[in-house]
């Protein structure tokens, strides 16, 4: 992939581009025709439209690519509007977008952009199919989030696309579920609880887990396998068993803390949930950190020791920076484990420690309401924003440091 072809030849218009685009058009034509129960007519219409589009856009070779694509999309949308109203516009725009993109992609020869010039057509075809497969998997990953976001604007209290929503009428939509989420203690308190519990639990599992992983990576550890099995066990015991088992342990522990240390009940409640979640996060930290340590060059610590660094300095200055990525990704898994955990907290926690997943769980069970979807949409948006910001900052710092992107 890294071997880019410097000069891409435009393929022959009539031998390649027109048939390809016509075939692509045929697929759309067939599907569209099928809606009106005339698949064959649609197929022929698609072939003709595809061929014409390929030739038409070839004439406009001088125009920038994006203008061709959006132009096609707009043209298709207008046709769609004539036949199918608002839905037709959307459908037409989408079909136009794909047709336009495909035509320019094929027509300009960009489809060979990612492969070395010596590839045979078969290899190019395989390469591009592979990309399509990947695109499909990414779509599969993201697809369920789309209806979530869409339905969160539902004006009704069900998880159902109403006819008003489908015809894009304003009365089918409302922000009431967002008001419900942002404006009520019912949701804000659980959110706050989750944001208290998850980071602290993560901190505990990461610090203890990292130490233990370093210990485990030493060359002579008696009973290494057994210890490893014990530390991994929270991941493999079915959660419902863990939940009840832990309940019986944490309840007397809580009583003891309250009676002997004079801690108040709410605080003890948090402690219990945090400890339970910390244990559940530990296997992830152990697995990731030991994995990073496997490739760790031990001569580095020896070199540091040779130069007079004490073990603590060695750890923080040499070892830690190198295994940090493993530690962080372990921490991420641990955080998600806590942030998305519902079974254990239902047992171990009490109403005051109600977390976001708990609230969602009772919400789903007792009263299905799109407020849950609004909550999810907000969380997803926040994480997109955060992830994008970080990526942008990273690129900026790379640019500042004069590193090439890549």
């Amino acid at each position: 992939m890294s071997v880019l072809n410097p000069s891409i030849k435009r393929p022959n218009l009539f031998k390649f581009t027109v048939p390809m685009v016509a075939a692509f058009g045929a697929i759309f034509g067939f599907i569209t025709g099928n809606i009106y129960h005339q698949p064959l007519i649609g197929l022929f219409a698609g072939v003709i439209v595809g061929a014409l589009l390929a030739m038409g856009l070839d004439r406009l070779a001088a125009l920038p690519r994006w203008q061709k694509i959006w132009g096609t999309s707009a043209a298709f949308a207008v046709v769609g509007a004539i036949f199918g109203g608002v839905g037709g516009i959307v459908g037409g725009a989408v079909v136009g977008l794909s047709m336009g993109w495909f035509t320019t992609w094929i027509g300009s020869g960009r489809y060979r952009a990612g492969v070395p010039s010596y590839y045979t057509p078969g290899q190019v075809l395989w390469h591009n199919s592979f990309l399509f497969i990947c695109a499909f998997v990414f779509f599969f990953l993201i697809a369920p989030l789309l209806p979530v976001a869409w339905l969160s604007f539902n004006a009704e209290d069900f998880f159902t696309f109403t006819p008003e929503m489908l015809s894009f009428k304003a009365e089918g939509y409302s922000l009431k579920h967002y008001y419900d989420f942002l404006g009520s203690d019912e949701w804000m308190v659980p959110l706050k609880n989750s944001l208290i519990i998850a980071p602290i639990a993560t901190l505990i599992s990461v610090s203890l887990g990292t130490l233990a992983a370093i210990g485990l990576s030493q060359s002579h550890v008696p009973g290494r396998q057994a210890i490893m099995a014990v530390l991994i066990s929270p991941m493999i015991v079915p959660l419902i068993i863990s939940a009840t088992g832990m309940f019986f342990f944490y309840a007397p522990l809580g009583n003891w803390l309250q009676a002997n240390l004079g801690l108040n009940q709410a605080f003890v409640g948090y402690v219990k949930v945090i400890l339970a979640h910390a244990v559940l996060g530990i296997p992830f930290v152990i697995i990731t950190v030991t994995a990073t340590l496997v490739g760790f060059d031990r001569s580095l610590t020896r070199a540091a020791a040779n130069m007079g660094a004490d073990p603590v300095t060695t750890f923080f200055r040499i070892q830690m920076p190198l295994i940090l990525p493993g530690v962080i990704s372990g921490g991420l898994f641990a955080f998600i484990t806590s942030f998305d955990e519902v079974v254990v907290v239902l047992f171990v926690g009490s109403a005051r420690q109600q977390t976001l997943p708990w609230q969602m769980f009772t919400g789903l069970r007792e009263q299905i309401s799109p407020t849950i979807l609004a909550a999810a949409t907000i969380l997803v948006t926040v994480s997109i924003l955060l992830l994008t910001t970080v990526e942008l900052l990273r690129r900026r710092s790379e640019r500042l440091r004069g590193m090439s992107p890549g």
Partner: protein
Amino acid sequence: MSDTTQEPMLAADGRPLKQSLARALRRQKLRALMLIAPLLIFVMVTFIIPILSMLFRSVENEIVSNTLPHTVVALQEWDSSTGEAPDENVFRHLYFDLFKASEAKEHTKLGTRLNYERTGLSSVFRTTGRRLDDMGSDFQDPLEDINENFKEGAFWYEMLSGEGGEELLESRRALWARLTGESMAGDIGFTPSPQMADMLPWATRAYTDFAIWTVIDDQDVVAEEDPWEAVYAGLAQDLQSEQTQTEIAAYDGPGAQALKDAVANLDQLPEVNFKAAFIDAKEDWGTTDLWSTMQVFSSNYTTGYFLNAVDLELTPEGVQAKPENQQIYMQLFMRTLWMALVITGACILLGYPVAWLLANLPMRTANTLMILVLLPFWTSLLVRTSAWKVLLQQQGVINDILVWLGFVGDANRLILMNNATGTIIAMTHILLPFMILPLYSVMKTIPPSYLRAAKSLGATNWTAFWRVYFPQSVPGIGAGSILVFILAIGYYITPEIVGGTSGIFISNRIAYHISSSLNWGLAAALGTILLVVVLVLYWAYDKIVGIDNVKLGG
């Protein structure tokens, strides 16, 4: 090396090198253990011990002997093959055991426990529990008619208390403690008289039980309370014995007159026949089925739950298969394993190309695409599952689109959920990031030059991939698979929501027994079996791939 035999090699500090090395090794080991210790202790205490104690419930069965201690002993001599219910002796013990249990409200727990093994026992215990007072009142009323003193709590206290009966008191207290699970410690203000314990054994024992319960649980003063009906029943039972009658004739301590009156008017008391009384309360007591179930499950530990968990049952005739219409667990275990396997396979198929793409794209593009992998990860499992419900149901998005496009008739919408398909699709989606991330981190370490080298040496694309690249990515597949498989096997919320009846896992049954049927013993047995399966897989994985090769992103 030959001269080392004469003079050991010395380390810098003058010690023999061997010794010095051994010491260093020991210190190294110690340091490693010191690093591991905090976490190990933490996990041991906060997880392993609670889990083991939970799993211990799968064999624990002390409830029968704790609730009916004397009955269980008496029942040992009974032979279920005679076809006759046990004799009066067993019923007599049953009465006094059960009376105590019903005062402490433990008898219904026993009923529930035995009901797991034999339908209908729950109501036998509950119904009988309500009749126990009446059974005692049958004796209390005539006794009080014979001598008014029997009405007085203080009279009983004076008659039965004495010195030197600590042994009896403590043994009764121990039985109470076993029954209630509490210590029952404390000053009772009553010690049974050994003389009375000899003369009126049943009444004294019943009164001692009453005294302990009155003081410890109700926090009343013994002498001021009227005794339980069981004490009167005990006295009536004692009075049947000729030896007791002779001893009463010679007795002149407190309450002597009342006892003598009672002996003189013995004909006013109804016949003492606990067996008849129990059968009258609930006729099931006259059947052998009930008693043989009790006998089979009277030991403190049982394999019953485990047998139930594999569709077998423990009967007086030994271990038998359950009736076919009640066999569910083996099928569920098989289905769980099979579906977890399918889900793992689907994750490999979908995850491998994506991980390969991410590992081979320029950093900038890869990072952007990685957001797509991580987004679902940041979305609550519950939300994603409900989203799949919206997508997959018959009036859902996918079916709507297919119908709109004309590929599927409105009448023949596809059934994509409430079956195994739904579970597999939703869980593949949920677990896919757990496959992609480890695969990605392993593939990232495979130098692309290997592939190019293979190709330049004349390998086709396929050969280069299959013979060079793929073997190096196997640890990633292994790590992802074990992670996905183990997580899948224990899931229950997603199957519950989209799985219908044919797409649920064994965990759903475990959850059902924990929170709905309250059969925790069976839940623990099912959980233990599941855990053993996972541990065996984990062990096999460790042997084949090595757990060190597991990588989760990074």
